[in-house]
């Protein structure tokens, strides 16, 4: 150990804030409630082509034929999402019944990455109707498949939440959930980096998982991207 190392070690020491111990104790006494318990309250309707409607609270599943498979898949994926084990959905969505403008808005909303937010005005600009922020709000408000099409990731330009079909509380909780769910997970056994929710990644135990900030970071320490879920660093 040379002198440089010793000096650096001294430099690295940080005084612990006096509030930390109390905060940790309080947090351990009453852990925050999880969203996973709400999974049963989501109900789905599906056609042959995909999930066409998602309702929260009272309701029941509605599907026939191939649609039943979509409902099963949607139910499983939403449950995983609420438990913080999934960051993307693979179940097909059927937006057959919506008008052209709304279709455009919903398609753009689906491009907002997990864990980030956008504003109604920004979304309006992106679809080429910069003055249509309110129309965008209406289109999202009538979103037939909330959660799967992440209209909760759209908030007001001034930073406040705005409305949500399932209530402001749930919007907040979904955004908090996304804020604390890691996006990229590496499996230490295979050195493969996946998006959280990939079936390959889900098979790994909790003690075999490490989080990465980007696919490039992961590659830098010898992890290759998964070929099933194909994680990419598009936002960077």
């Amino acid at each position, binding site marked *: 150990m040379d002198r440089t190392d010793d000096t*650096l070690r001294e430099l690295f*020491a940080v005084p612990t804030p006096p509030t930390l111990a109390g905060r*940790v*104790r309080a947090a*351990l006494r009453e852990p925050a409630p999880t969203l996973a318990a709400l999974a049963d309250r989501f109900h789905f309707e599906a056609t042959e082509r995909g999930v066409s409607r998602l309702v929260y609270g009272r309701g029941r599943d509605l599907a026939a034929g191939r649609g039943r498979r979509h409902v099963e898949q949607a139910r499983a994926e939403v449950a995983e999402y609420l438990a913080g084990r999934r960051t993307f959905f693979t179940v097909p969505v059927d937006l057959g019944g919506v008008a052209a403008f709304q279709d455009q808005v919903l398609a753009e909303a689906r491009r907002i990455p997990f864990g980030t937010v956008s504003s109604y005005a920004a979304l309006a600009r992106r679809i080429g109707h910069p003055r249509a922020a309110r129309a965008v709000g209406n289109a999202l408000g009538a979103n037939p498949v909330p959660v799967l099409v992440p209209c909760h990731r759209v908030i007001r330009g001034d930073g406040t939440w705005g409305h949500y079909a399932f209530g402001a509380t749930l919007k907040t909780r979904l955004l908090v959930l996304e804020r604390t769910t890691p996006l990229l997970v590496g499996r230490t056994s295979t050195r493969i980096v996946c998006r959280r929710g990939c079936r390959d990644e889900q098979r790994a135990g909790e003690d075999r*998982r490490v989080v990465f*900030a980007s696919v490039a970071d992961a590659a830098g320490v010898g992890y290759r991207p998964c070929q099933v879920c194909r994680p990419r660093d598009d936002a960077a």
Partner: protein
Amino acid sequence: MDERAFARLAEDYAGRLYSVAYRLLGNRADAEDAVQRALLKCFAARASYSPQWAVSTWLYRALTNVCIDELRRRRIRTDGVELRAETPTSPSPVGARVDLTRALATVPREARMLVALHYVDGLDYRELATIRGISVNTVKSQLARGKAILKKALQAGGHDGSY
């Protein structure tokens, strides 16, 4: 591991975890938050803790996972290229602290984490490798790279080079 044992453990480690988180995230609020979240995660998963792991490895794994994800959200550009040699700073002792924070910000994320774990708690290569799920050789090369960038940044930041 029962609840009381875990609470004791959390108290023992909170300070060290905080130091690492602070060095990674650069501010007190985020660091406290990260420690709390990491400990809560471990608390929730305490039943699945296997004693073949060192407790510190387990806790640091959880902490680094939380911190790394936090850094992802910030989308910090971490190319060493961004390092500016002409950064004007005061060479005062107070300046040295600020310098370290700024200098650390120029170190790429993965290397920064290893540097922080290494200098705060003196963890060895093997433990660092287990915490991050990488090979010992990768630890060595990343750590060396991180140290080199850090030292260069500290010198550029007006340090007199006497450390």
